[in-house]
Each structure stands twice: as C-alpha cells, then as structure tokens.
C-alpha cells in the first residue's frame, strides 16, 4: 500500500534489475518502458552508489522503446519489436535482456512472445516480465537470479570441486560492491578456490551458464536469495552457505573462512595458515602501529542490513566501540529475516547490544537519531549528513545512497577492508 517515504532509498524493480545487468560483461538491457524510466532508475541506482556508472552501456546508451501515448492506447509490441531489431544491429552485446516498465506491465504487452521471435532466430535475448511497480531494487536483484536460473544456467555441466559462486552483494547498488567482491575473491583464491562472481573481472554469461557446476553458493547477505538458493539446490545440486552479513575485520572474516572450509571440507593446515597470515601478520600488524589514533566512540549505523551488520560487528567486536543504535533501511517482509538480522546484530562478543530498528522513511530515521543524545559517531548515507551536522558529531558516509563520494573499488570487507574502514573513520574525524 502506498505510504509516506521521505527521500526514498530504494528503487523500483526496474532499477534493481538494470543495476545488476549493468555489471555483466557486455550485457545490454533493453527498456520496454516510458521515456524517463531508464534515466531515472540509472540515476537512482548506480548514480547514488558512489558515483561510477556501468562500463558497457548505461543511462543514455541503453536502448529504450520510450513508450508514449500511442503505445499506451494501441499496445507497444510493434515498438518493442523494432527496438529489439535496432538494438541487435547497433549494440554489439553478448546478451540482451528486455525489461518491463510500469506502462508495459499495466497495458499487458506480451513481451515474452516478441522476445521468443528473436530467440528463434538464434539471438541471445531474454525476457524479464517483472514490471516496475512489482517491488523494490532488492526484489530486482532476486528477479535477475530467477531469470538466470530459469533461462541461462546450463544443466549437466561436470561438477568442479573447487568452484564456488559468491553471491549476495548487489552490483551498482552496494556502493562498495566491486571492492567487496575483489577482497572476498582474494581470500577465497588463497584457499585454493575459483570464484564466480558474475560481475567482476569481466565475468558474465559464461560464468552464469557454468554456475551449476559449482560446489557451493556462498551467499554473503543475511536475507536475500532465499528462493535462488532453493532453486540452485533442487535443479543443479548446488548447496548454499549463508554468511549473515558482510564480514568486516579479523573476527568475522576468519569465521567466514572457517564456515566455508567446513562446508567444502578444505585442508585444515592450509586454511589455518591463511588465517594466521591475514590476521596476525597483516591486520594486527598494522593495527598495532596506530593504537589510540581513533578515540573511543558510541556509534549509530544507518544502512542496508548487509553493511549494517558488518559495521556494527566490526566496530563492537574488533574495535571495542560501543554500539547504540542500528537502523536497517531496506524494506523486508519476512519476520524470520528480521529475527536473523536482529540476532546477528545483538549477539556481540563483548559489547552491550544496540537498539535495532527497521525503517526506510527518512523522517523516522532522523527522529530516532535526534532522540539519542549519546551518539558520538554516526555512520550512514548521504541523507544522514544533515542530522550529523545538527547533532555536531562525527558523520561518515558509508551506505546507500552516497552522492558525495567517488568509489571505484574501495572496500571495507574482509581483512584488508577493515584497515581501510579504520583509516576512513580517522580521515573523517
């Protein structure tokens, strides 16, 4: 039901889908939508996720049928057909995906039939029939995986014991997605694993097709891809391991490694050697050189659950700061997910647990922050800068939407990322 949302943080499904497709090497989305949908969703997603845009096609270069009144009245299938034909001629892509805007969704254009005509001619083109109003960007991410699993992942590929799919980090929505994938891939490579991310190192359609050959899905997210996990298991015999929140710092990253090692029965000697190398010889080796650089803080976090869990746990468990308030900003509907997230945020090793709120409306977010007078460090999105200024406390912008930082492959994930996070908190004192 429609409700009041000040400064909405999520996009529509279309935005979510477009953001994910933008990270697949040489994949071209085709919008069957109104003239503004592509620009609006591009600007609202990657445009607010740290300032970089998808490299292959983005915003002005994405084909769109730009549906007008004529199509609303008479149907837009002919316009879609000529748009697809033109796209295949003009854009040199490895795969094409047709997206459905609200307009096409409501008037009921038969997108699948039009796409099938081109499939029959041998073009690698896929229909995504989920219209904009069907949900938010997170649902867009899950919708893309549904399309992968229903239409692209190939059955009968020989199993590869050391291949894993690394999932749960949303490209062009999580501002640190590139760097997060890079750091977690680095760690998994050290364990002797090959990693499918689908979205980095020019991975794309080949890796998606081959993902059924993986030995394990590692889902780094406390709640997304529940259905995809079930489908991978049922149709491709790929089990999933859920990592309930982005691992940041020694404690959670080591735990991340041990869970994977157990799931894949990896050689313990090698695993422990990697942990020792990363923890002792790397992370703490640096941390001990700047003891006391950051003064003790009582902190509040505002962000999506994946990042909020990672940040809260690192700062409380590893850095001995005091958690006061964690606000989860993405809408979610299953109670079990909220419970899992709450549990992860409150079962801390040393600290008193923070208050946990689930809230998307900037009005209530600002109110909750204003009411807590003990906060001395606020970590949130660009939207929280204002309340940070009003409270006259340190404010670090780390979660979506970020419109005042440029982020290529910076990461706070894993071992190395935790050092960067600590540096950035100091820079922002």
């Amino acid at each position: 039901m429609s409700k009041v949302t000040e400064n909405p943080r999520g996009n529509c499904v279309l935005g979510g889908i477009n953001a994910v497709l933008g990270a697949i090497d040489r994949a071209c989305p085709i919008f069957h939508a109104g003239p503004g949908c592509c620009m609006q969703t591009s600007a609202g997603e990657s445009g607010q996720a740290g300032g970089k845009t998808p490299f292959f096609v983005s915003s002005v270069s994405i084909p769109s049928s730009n549906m007008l009144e004529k199509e609303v009245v008479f149907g837009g299938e002919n316009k879609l057909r000529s748009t697809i034909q033109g796209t295949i001629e003009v854009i040199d892509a490895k795969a094409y995906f047709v997206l459905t805007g609200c307009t096409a969704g409501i008037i009921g254009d038969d997108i699948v039939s039009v796409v099938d005509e081109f499939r029959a001619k041998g073009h690698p083109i896929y229909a995504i029939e989920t219209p904009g109003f069907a949900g938010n960007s997170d649902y867009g991410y899950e919708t893309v995986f549904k399309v992968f699993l229903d239409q692209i992942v190939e059955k009968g590929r020989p199993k590869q014991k050391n291949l894993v799919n690394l999932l749960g980090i949303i490209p062009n929505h999580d501002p640190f997605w590139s760097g997060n994938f890079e750091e977690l891939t680095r760690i998994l490579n050290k364990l002797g694993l090959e990693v499918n991310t689908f979205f980095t190192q020019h991975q794309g359609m080949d890796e998606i097709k081959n993902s059924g050959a993986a030995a394990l899905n590692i889902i780094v997210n406390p709640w997304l891809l529940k259905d995809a996990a079930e489908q991978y298991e049922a149709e491709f015999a790929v089990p999933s391991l859920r990592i309930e929140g982005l691992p940041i710092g020694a404690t959670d990253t080591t735990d991340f490694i041990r869970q994977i090692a157990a799931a894949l029965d990896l050689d313990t000697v090698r695993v422990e050697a990697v942990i020792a190398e990363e923890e002792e010889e790397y992370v703490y080796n640096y941390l001990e050189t700047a003891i006391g650089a950051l003064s003790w803080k009582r902190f509040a976090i505002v962000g999506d659950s994946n990042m909020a869990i990672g940040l809260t746990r690192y700062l409380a468990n590893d850095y001995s700061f005091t958690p006061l308030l964690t606000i989860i900003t993405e809408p979610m509907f299953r109670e079990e997910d909220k419970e899992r997230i709450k549990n992860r945020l409150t079962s801390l090793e040393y600290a008193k647990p923070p208050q946990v709120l689930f809230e998307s409306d900037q009005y209530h977010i600002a109110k909750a922050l204003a009411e807590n007078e003990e906060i001395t460090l606020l970590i949130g999105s660009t939207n929280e800068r204002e309340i940070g200024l009003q409270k006259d406390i340190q404010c670090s912008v780390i979660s979506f939407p970020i419109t005042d930082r440029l982020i290529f492959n910076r990461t706070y994930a894993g071992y190395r990322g935790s050092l960067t996070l600590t540096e950035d908190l100091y820079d922002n004192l």
Partner: protein
Amino acid sequence: MAMQLDISDIGTRENRLGSITGYVGDLQDLANQSNCGSLKGGVRCFSQSSTCLSGCALGQLSGIRDVAVIHHGPAGCSVTGAQIYTVTKQVAKKRGVVNNTVYIGTDMSEEDTIFGAGDSLHDIVVETNRRYKPKAIFVSSSCATGIIGEDIDSIVAELRDEIDVPIAAIHCEGFKSRIWASGFDLSDHAVLTTIVKEPKQKRNKINFKNFYESARDDIIALFKNFDVEPVFLYANATVEELSHISESLATVCICGTLGNYLGNGLEEKYGVPYIRTINPLGVVGFETWLREIGKVIHKETEVEQYIQAERSIYLPQIEEVKKELEGLRAVLGMGPGYTFEVSRVLQELGMEVVWAAAWHYDKRYENGDIPPAMDYLLKNTPNFEVSVADQQNFEILNILNTYKPDLYLSRHPGSTVWAIKQGYPAVYVADEYMIFGYKRTLEFAHTVLDTIRNRSFEKNLAKMVKLPYTDWWYKQKLDLFLEKTK
C-alpha cells in the same frame, strides 16, 4: 494563442508549440520548414533512453524553499529525490539560507495499480502537511497513476478544503511527451495558477528564471547599477516571494526553454514584460539582452555606460584568446535553449560549428514567435548541419565519428562521458552561467582552450575502451531509424 491558465493540466510542447524530437538536416532547412508550417518531426523505430518530464517539473518545484513535493508512483519514479534533496540543501547552504523542502515518494505497489491508491494519497498529503508544515504542496502523478486513471485533480481539490497552504496537482505522466522540457511548463503552470497572486503594487524587481543561481552575487551587483533587484526563480525562492512575482518590472531568463512558459504567462496574465531577446551568453547575447532590459525599465543610458566600461576591460582579452580558438571545429548536443545560443557564441569566438544537435526543437514559443536564437543565427551566421534528437547517444557518437571535431560540448553529463570514451575532448556546460556576460565568456574561452590542449586522458582512454556500438552502425547514415510521420 492565449495560454490556458484556468485549467489544471496543460498540453505538451508537441501539441502547444509544434515541438519535435526527430530531424536531420541543416539550420536553413529547419527554419524554412518551421516558417512555412511544413515541419513534421520524424519518429525513431529504434531509440536509446530519453528522459521524462517529471525530472524537469519536480526538480524545479523542489528547489522552492520549504515546500513538499509528493511523487505519487512506484519507488523508481521518486528515487532520485535523495539527490535533489542534497543539491537543494547544498545550494541553500551556499547562499546562507535554510531550505526545508521535502521530497516524498508514495511507493506505489502492484496492489495499488489494481485497486487504485486515491485514499492513501489523500492520507499521505494530510500526513505530509502535519509532519513538515510546508508552505505549499505539489502532488505529482506518474505513468502508473495516469494509466490506471487516478484522479489527482479531484483529490487535490478535496484537500484544498482541509489544508490551508497552496496545493497543486502536477500531471507528470511520463508517456505524455517526448520533450522533457514540457516539465518546466508544468512547474511554471503550477506556480502561476496556485501561488502567484494578483499584483497590488509595482516593485523595483526583475524576475530571473534560472536553475541554481550560481551567478547570484554578480547579477545582484549588475542590476544595482540600474537600481533594480533580481528575484531568482525557483531555487531557494520562498512561496511568499513567488506570490509577488506579478508585481515585478520584467521577467528575464537564462535559458529560453526554461523561461518561456512563466515569462509569457506573467506577461499575458499580469502585464509583466517578458524579455525575449537572445540569451545573455557571449558578448552579443549579453549586450542585446541587457539593452532590452534597459529599454523596458527605462535605464538605457545607465546600461550603455555599463556596457562601454565593461567592454574596455574584457573585449581586448577576448580578442586575444580568440586568436587561439580560430578555426577549431565543434559539435554540440544540448537542449534547444542552449544549442542555438552556444552555437552563436562559438562562432563569436572564431570557432566553426560543424554540427548542432538539439534535444528537441520548438517551432515557436508561447507567444507564437520563432525562438530568437534561431532567428539570430539565420540572419547572421553561415548555415550548418543540425539534428534534433532526444539525446540518442548512438546518433551523437556517429556524428563525432564522421566529423571528427576538435571538441564536443554538451549540457548533459551522460553525453560528454560517451564522447570522451570515443576519444573526443568534451566540455560539460553544467553551470547555466558558464558563458554569462563578459567575464564568464572570457573564462569559457579559456576552458575550451584548456580542454583541447591536453588530450592525454581522452587519447589513452579511447585506446583501452571497447565501445558498445557495432562497426556497422558507424557506417550508417544518421537518419536510418527515423521514420517520417504522416
């Protein structure tokens, strides 16, 4: 044709002004066809992303101080609200004022598209008013609400009895128009019909329609020479200020596309003269514009003195830099309010315009005249190639590849990015005041020089980047996908 200021929804530019988005030809031909009435825009059977009118409409309105913009639609329509929010706050901070405008999305769902969300919209407006106590409320529709037939006019009419601040319905169904500038007209129409009051007294003020008032201090100082004060619209304007713009001496604008509806509306309804010269970009534009202002406010002598004093400072410097710009070849892609103005300035600076692409083209403005920039070019400059396209990135890159200019200029950041990826130095004319007056024209000339002198980034990048377009496309004619309308 009289403007219809007594209705809630106005026609699009296509319908009101005969505006088009599809054309390939040249300046003379475009103007001749406009004049004899035979100009019909083409329609593309293949297109890349355009933009809808909601960004222009709601972007303008959300700049007004302490108002609420309620975007009734699915989350994607309002998601850039957060960006608008940041820009609004930053622009206000720069000026030293506080702007408490809020941008609200209604997060329309699948269920709402079936059962309608009129009741919840009513409640949302009431709740917004209770929470934020805005000075005015703008309620916008979207494609989805338009198709399911949500009657926002009736909802807003009902709310007028319950809420004691001005409240307007903005008809932003994106499928209405190919021309996003129609959104500027929607915002002007809302201001004219719900906020502006009947004049009680004349004030020594000039309405200045612009985007982000970056040249505010300079313009205040400029107008002080003539004993008038500017009222900048709409960024950071208060609702109270807006209610009095019918009492100003004149309306001027930085961009004809932006100012057309408000300027003509204020003139037609309240007799506030609208300055319709070419725009104050470059030397000729600035002087023509300023002289007309002088005439309207009866300060011709003071204007002339000012012009002579400034000329003696800046013209020798501009002449100097012109020597280095002489003969450079440029391609432009901008909204029509800028394309034809900047084409003129480039020629003033000694450069050659090899292709000008306008994001749309208005055959005439609200008062029935052909846009002054176009008129000026026809009378004063050599003919050059022109296309009209709602962005259409693939066409721009084809033009660049064919003509290989020294420079590409655009007022759209996404467009310059692709030119640079293809190896062309590009100037993003982001600030609407980048070429305003003598000083900034001089600075602009230096910016162009700086841009073309160091091309290392573009050269290196273009070597590494594989663009999405097929080799086949670069060999095609530009109008391949353009179908003539009957």
